[in-house]
């Protein structure tokens, strides 16, 4: 009896110590986190309802939903959403489709597997800004790309003047960078499917397409969703190629949300409008993240 109660008291003391220790470590982190991570979220919502220029605090003037009504009535702003969507969906579709197809081939027994994997992933770790800057230099009217065209007997083009080509190059660069990561994630998913399932499938007489449809796809659904949603969230992050290559040219046809958020804040000093756009991006991404949470590993959090 005596030892049992002593032991219990000992456990309680340890628990109490743990509680105190954990809070002593977590409390400063929580304060810091609240200020630097959570406060901006509150700021962005408040400032979205003002026409503040970001300089003097007594200039803050609340204008209700004016910023938001302007966004939803002005075609210039609506076009930002459309442009972002065009970039996002094209990049998303190309990376997911090619990433999945390549992963199917890459998991097979082949020579130089490590080399191939590295070659596909390396573009993703290169600075997007530098690649964009190089391409911007290649596309100038007297640039090397026009020089190559002339050498081939074709006529030179105004790359920056044609929306199609701006989209083409920015999408091409983004897909080039993103493919490797997407492919590796799919490979990890494909490798985790037990080989027996395919054996059973073959015994049952399933053809290659049926095996893909009834075995592979259901088995990698979580990774598929993860890839899909992270890429969808990522599509709001397109900035460097717009800033360094197109700058919205021609006539704002390639301007996207993040570029406009940046420009409104740091070139036009219209923090209010910039924050209003940010709020809309946040709402969209929160919805996408909620879907993601349902399908990915993060459901552990619950």
């Amino acid at each position, binding site marked *: 009896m005596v030892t049992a109660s002593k032991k219990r008291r000992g456990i309680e003391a340890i628990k109490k110590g743990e509680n105190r220790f954990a809070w002593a470590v977590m409390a400063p982190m929580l304060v810091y986190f609240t200020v630097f991570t959570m406060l901006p979220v509150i700021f962005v919502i408040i400032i979205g309802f003002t026409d503040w220029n970001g300089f003097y605090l007594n200039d803050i003037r609340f204008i209700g939903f004016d910023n938001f009504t302007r966004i939803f009535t002005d075609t210039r702003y609506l076009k930002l959403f459309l442009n972002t969507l065009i970039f996002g969906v094209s990049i998303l579709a190309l990376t997911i489709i090619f990433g999945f197809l390549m992963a199917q081939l890459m998991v097979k027994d082949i020579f130089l597997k490590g080399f191939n994997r*590295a070659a596909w992933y390396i573009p993703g770790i290169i600075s997007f800004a*530098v690649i964009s800057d190089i391409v911007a230099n290649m596309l100038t009217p007297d640039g090397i790309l026009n020089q190559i065209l002339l050498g081939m007997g074709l006529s030179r083009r105004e790359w920056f003047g044609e929306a199609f080509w701006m989209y083409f190059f920015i999408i091409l660069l983004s897909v080039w960078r993103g493919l490797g990561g997407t492919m590796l994630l799919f490979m990890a998913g494909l490798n985790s499917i037990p080989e027996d399932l395919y054996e059973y499938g073959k015994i049952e007489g399933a053809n290659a397409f049926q095996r893909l449809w009834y075995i592979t796809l259901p088995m990698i659904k979580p990774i598929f969703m993860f890839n899909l949603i992270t890429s969808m969230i990522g599509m709001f992050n397109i900035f460097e190629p717009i800033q360094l290559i197109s700058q919205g040219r021609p006539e704002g046809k390639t301007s996207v949300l993040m570029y406009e958020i940046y420009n409104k804040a740091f070139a036009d000093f219209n923090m209010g409008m910039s924050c209003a756009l940010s709020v809309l991006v946040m709402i969209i991404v929160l919805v996408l993240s909620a879907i993601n949470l349902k399908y990915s590993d993060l459901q552990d959090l619950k």
Partner: protein
Amino acid sequence: MTRTSKNRITRKIVLSVILFASSVIMLYPLVYMLLGALADNDQMYLNASFLPKPYFTADRIKNFTIVFEADDFTQSIFITFARIGFYAVINVLFSTMAGYIFSKMEFKGKKIVFLYLMSSMMIPGVAVMVPSYILLNRFPLVGGNDILGAGGMGFRDNPAVLFVTGWVPVYNMFLMRQSFNSFGSEMKEAAMVDGANHFLIMFVIYMPLALPCLAVMLIGMVIGFWNDYMTCLIYLPDLKGWHTIGTKIIDIIDLYGAGGNGVPYYSRIYGISFMFILPPIVVFLIFQRFFISGLAMGAVKG
């Protein structure tokens, strides 16, 4: 028997060749860059082609080494390394502590604290870019600001901004918690009986077990900070001497890459860019194994 194995080998070779070709396409831009840096600039421009003719002479080396002559280059590299080192320490310390506490300790409010921290993973960086800037720009008692945050510049054009944000690495904390979850509590209990304190247990006993996880975190972090373009662009617009290399390199490329008559000096652009993208590629190739397992860690349960 021999026939099927022969077929299998033929198929393996064909597939390997196809995939090798795909890898060559992925790496082509880098090959082009390297060949272009080794080419004679005028010749490359006048007889422009998709495969510039390289010359392996001593003066070609200049296209690569000219980056070292740029103003502030050494300082920029030094600041970048200081930043990487600083955040490496912060990341290892704080994510180990938080990961251990969430995985192996009990305290009141643990679930709520955890959810509060993790909820920030859903906040897109784009949406808080501007309010974070406002927070740091109006930070009380910094850079001439008064207690209300008015009057000065805060952290804008203040080099300290490179070191004050991101001290609570939520995603890394989550990864470390996952990693610690896969090790039992027996070691902790045994160590506590022997009278070890919590710091000793988490850093000496548990942290070494999570080395692969830490490696993934650190490699991603190093490459991220090396390539970081936005931070200096937004926070240090008038303090170019303090720009980290990811932002600085664009200025260097534009400075040495500006040729006469609106024709860029391509071989310099390619050479400088190649020098800049080399370190992340080398880091990646050395630590590839960790990197790829880490990529999967985010998406696959394990």
